[in-house]
């Protein structure tokens, strides 16, 4: 379980998050929604050690994460898929997967590659293709497969469906549900498309201006008369 407590964070002198507290539940899809610039991505980055944390704490199963370098946090079992540049475009799909498991031993890594390719049949035929030639959705699948190679316990997605065609966006979200249901993974999902994300999610956080404006079940937020209209543009 990841517990964020009274977190104040940002980029150098620009504070983005103000006193944010949240506890992300194990084996669930935790959705973070909110308007542009509300600090959704910054919250993910802060968990992964990519921002300046001024005060507060982030704990993963009791281990303090603030102050640790990103590669260290990755090793603890947290995967972070950034919104952009999440694959090596000049490398083939197979080389990307090979790199994703850079620290694993060779035989174990080759096994894992076969395993994750089975989960994403769509990328199977592109093994020897340069990743830069794939569509946005396919790249998202490759990035997700790369994260899975390291057998993380928590996966954090930053707007995985942005710039994807609706059909592709749907299948990416279906894969995320599959990760929760079949692999019992903890998911933290930041989404621009709030409605779609809340429909598949369990727990939700609404961020407004860097503060938590709502915390509760996804259905609850979806059906909240004021918040859903005011901040999520639903009806």
């Amino acid at each position, binding site marked *: 379980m990841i517990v964020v407590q009274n977190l104040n964070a940002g980029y150098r002198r620009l504070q983005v998050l103000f006193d944010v507290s949240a506890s992300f539940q194990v084996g669930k899809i935790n959705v973070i929604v909110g308007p542009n610039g509300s600090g959704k991505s910054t919250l993910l980055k802060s968990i992964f050690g990519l921002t300046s944390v001024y005060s507060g704490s982030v704990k993963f199963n009791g281990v303090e994460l603030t102050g640790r370098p*990103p590669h260290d946090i990755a090793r603890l079992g947290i995967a972070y898929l950034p919104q952009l540049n999440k694959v090596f475009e000049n490398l083939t799909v197979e080389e990307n997967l*090979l790199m994703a498991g*850079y620290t694993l031993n060779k035989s174990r890594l080759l096994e894992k590659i076969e395993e994750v390719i089975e989960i994403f049949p769509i990328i199977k035929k592109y093994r020897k293709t340069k990743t830069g030639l794939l569509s946005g959705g396919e790249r998202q699948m490759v990035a997700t497969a790369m994260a899975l190679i390291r057998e993380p316990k928590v996966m954090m997605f930053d707007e995985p469906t942005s710039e994807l065609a609706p059909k592709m966006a749907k299948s990416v979200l279906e894969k995320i549900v599959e990760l929760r249901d079949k692999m019992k993974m903890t998911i933290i999902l930041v989404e621009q498309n709030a409605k779609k994300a809340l429909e598949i999610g369990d727990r939700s956080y609404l961020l407004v201006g860097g503060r938590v404006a709502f915390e509760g079940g996804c259905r609850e937020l979806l059906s909240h008369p004021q918040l859903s209209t005011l901040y999520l543009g639903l009806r």
Partner: protein
Amino acid sequence: MVALSLPLIRDAVIFASLLTMLSTGLTLTYMTTRVPNFAHGEFATMNVYLNLALVQVLGLSPYLGVVPSFFFGGLVALLLYLAVLKPLLDRGANYVILMIATIAYDMILISIINIIADYLNRVYKIQTRLFQLKGLDLDLLGQPMIFTVAPALSLIIITVLYFFLNKTKFGIAMRAAIENPSLAEVIGININLTYAFSWFISGGLAGLAGALLPLYMTCNPDIGVRLLISIFAASIVGGLTNIYGAFLGGLLIGLAETLGTGYLSIMVGPWIVPYRPVIPLSLMLLTLLFAPRGLTGVDWRKLLRREAEA
């Protein structure tokens, strides 16, 4: 029209081959650390003198000298990266600062080379200025052996580099670190190690070229600066972001420079020979003006299609 003469072609092939070893190295370190390395010519010159000492003092065959030259060249380059460039990069220095730092390192190396040249001359009575080792070359099928060794070594190097970068885990990691250092770091690649290794390889290849240079041309402590023009021209013609492009650029500049100067001296007179650097400089200028991303940045397929349609 002047007929092709064998010695001229031979010179062109040897120079082009040696130039590929220098341009691929310069391009490799530019790709990893984004530093235009002005000390690259001196990585070769250091080994001109290392090999000269090995040959004239210890009596080794000049071809045996390539092995120590590879390692020595690698170490000289690694020292530049670890002692100068890495600390500057850690402080967020931009490429202008890094470039000036390589010029400073270059000047230090030039001084060291001059000291070594004088030392060898005084203590061992070896000719260390305007010297050649052509007389010590072996004979292979009636031709100097360097005529075979240089192109063969050049092909072996580019093949080995291809396999290293595409078939080994560390090589793929180097490509990953070149493309997206922050993502590479997040997945556990030690990018500093891949960068350091690229400097070692780059210096090593320059060392190989340096060891063989005296078998082909008259060497002097200042040849590095002159070589640097050809090396940069070859790398820029190749696109600076692709080692295969740098290889092609090396061949092209090497052949154009030698053949061009050779024919011009026959046609207009030998007074033209000292103006030799005009050829690589003009090709570099043309590339920057008309194809700034180099040979490998041009979309040849599209260009050919347009030609076909016109």
